[in-house]
């Protein structure tokens, strides 16, 4: 798990830097959430379970297949194929329209249950996103359906500049489970093993037909919201300094247990670096024919769309 966490942070920083170099668009670093994303991933079965991320989490899902990162890099450089994470990888692309992924996850879980498939669905959303009606409608329906879904609220303390105190007066985000009549758990999101156990547990309940679980993973956003954000305008320095860094937590733990050596970490980082380099090279050298602009609107283009494509290829005009 630690290796994946180290990788997650490195991948995230590299994507962040690509934006700084004008090679990628706006993106949101994972900083602070490495443990909970990786811990959750290890609590699932990548061959049976699905993950619907928000956007920060994709760098930590290496366990679900290398396509996740490769496509995430493509996504961030603005290549349309970045939204296509190929079969059989059971991870959805980033969701920008916040909380809309929760109904999708519930529907997917409902469908899996209807088809008698094993496995479950895990969906991530942020603390701020819990204020959207979609979160509530979906969790409420999941309860009624006994859907095999795990809803993970990544409580990193902030929604851009908005602190959780402005999002809700609920005691905590796990408390919201009372509105749905489903179990709610709060876990330390900087402790990968604790998250792993909570998710593994929720998963067994889900696949056993015991229904959904709401998990609040508490962490702290150690970086800016995105490449476009300046957190010094609103994040209290003291609060930030006091926040635990999951990488350090894990390193200390590994060291205590005698697993960790600097050499090992250096090697992991070197590998991750090389792996990321390959992903970036592959992404930036991936060809793109502008006419794909017209593909995948429907399975077959409508006559009007086909006509627009023809004009586009001939004289770049429409009308």
């Amino acid at each position, binding site marked *: 798990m630690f290796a994946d966490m180290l990788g997650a942070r490195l991948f995230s920083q590299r994507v962040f830097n690509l934006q700084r170099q004008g090679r990628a668009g706006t993106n949101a670093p994972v900083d602070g959430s490495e443990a909970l994303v990786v811990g959750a991933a290890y609590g699932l079965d990548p061959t049976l379970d699905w993950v619907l991320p928000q956007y920060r989490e994709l760098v930590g899902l290496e366990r679900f297949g290398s396509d996740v990162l490769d496509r995430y890099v493509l996504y961030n450089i603005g290549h*349309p*194929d970045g*939204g*296509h*994470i*190929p*079969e059989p990888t059971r991870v*959805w*692309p980033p969701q920008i*329209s916040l909380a*809309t992924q*929760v*109904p*999708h*996850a*519930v*529907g*997917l*879980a*409902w*469908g*899996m249950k*209807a*088809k008698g*498939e094993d496995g479950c*669905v895990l969906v991530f959303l942020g603390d701020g996103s819990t204020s959207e*009606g*979609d979160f509530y*409608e*979906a969790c*409420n*329906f999941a309860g*009624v359906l006994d859907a095999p879904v795990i809803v993970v609220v990544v409580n990193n303390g902030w929604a851009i500049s908005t602190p959780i105190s402005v999002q809700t007066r609920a005691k905590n985000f796990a408390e919201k489970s009372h509105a749905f009549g489903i179990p709610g758990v709060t876990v330390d999101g900087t402790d990968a093993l604790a998250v792993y156990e909570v998710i593994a547990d929720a998963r067994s309940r889900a696949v056993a037909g015991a229904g959904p679980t709401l998990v609040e993973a508490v962490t702290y956003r150690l970086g800016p919201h995105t490449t476009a954000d300046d957190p010094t305008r609103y994040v209290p320095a003291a609060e930030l300094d006091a926040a635990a860094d999951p990488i350090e937590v894990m390193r200390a733990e590994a060291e205590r247990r005698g697993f960790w050596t600097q050499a090992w970490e250096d090697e992991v980082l070197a590998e991750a670096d090389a792996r990321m380099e390959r992903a970036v090279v592959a992404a930036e050298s991936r060809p793109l024919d502008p006419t794909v602009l017209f*593909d*995948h*609107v*429907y*399975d077959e283009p*409508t*006559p*009007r769309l086909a006509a627009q494509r023809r004009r586009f290829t001939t004289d770049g005009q429409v*009308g």
Partner: protein
Amino acid sequence: MATLNMLESINATLHAEMARDDRVMVFGEDVAVNGGVFRATEGLLDSFGADRVVDTPLAEGVIAGTAVGLAAAGMVPVPEIQFLGFSYQAFHQIAGQIARLRYRTRSRFEVPITIRSPFGGGVRTPELHSESLEAQYANIPGLKIVLPASAADAKGLLATAIRDPNPVLFLEPLRGYRMIKDDVPDGEHLVPFGQARTVCEGSDVVVIAWSFQVELARRAAVRLAEDGISVRVLDLRTLVPLDVAAIVEAVEACGRVVVVQEAPLTNGFASEIIATINDEAFYSLAAPVERVSGYDTPYPTGMLEDHFVPDVDRIVAAVRRAAEVEA
């Protein structure tokens, strides 16, 4: 060949499609035990069981949103939005997600969703039960928009919609649910999208309409025939895809055009028809295109409804205006 009203035709088609493909699921508010507030889904629960015919909580957003996930799981979701006005609560899922999932994922996920919803005025329903919103969806690429005007088409278009691997808004004219009655072919009957239907031939003026307005146009054509004005009525059937060829052919044949819609005038779909004629058949127009339309007001209360919705008289008058213009 049986004579059915539109509601019977839709109900029979849902039965047939669910029997044909066990991936088809029908869900929404009051669709199962109650068989739908108009009985469109009557009997489905008994025939196909509670796993495939499901009453949902009262939340349109999650009805549309779960359809996305069900589709990803390999199902063929046929959710019902009880009245089209309440699709507003699901707009972020329909316009923002359902319409775009295939494009966003380069077809990793298909979206064979058919959203059924009744709409349309003239029958004294409460607020937001009557609104014609097709134009508000027509500017959203990725959706197909289907509006049957006959019981036969209700069958043929609904079957096509359910089998279509793309998201379809299937809009049912509630004023016509029982009023519209015609012969419906037995057995397999598929009407392809993007093929307008010539309801009656005519050479002086073409009236272009969809949904219940087709019936009004037909009645207007009958009345105008008595005064020797030959009116062709074109039922678009689907707005997306649009049968541009049929529109062009009709405009070239008649030279004079009336478009009828129940929605408010400004930026209703009639505007797109006129723009399309401008693009494709400009030189065939012998007169400006006439619009018969709802007004730029919210849909009014019961006592004012009949003044808002287009009627045969207004269509007749518009056809006369078009016919009178000197070429």
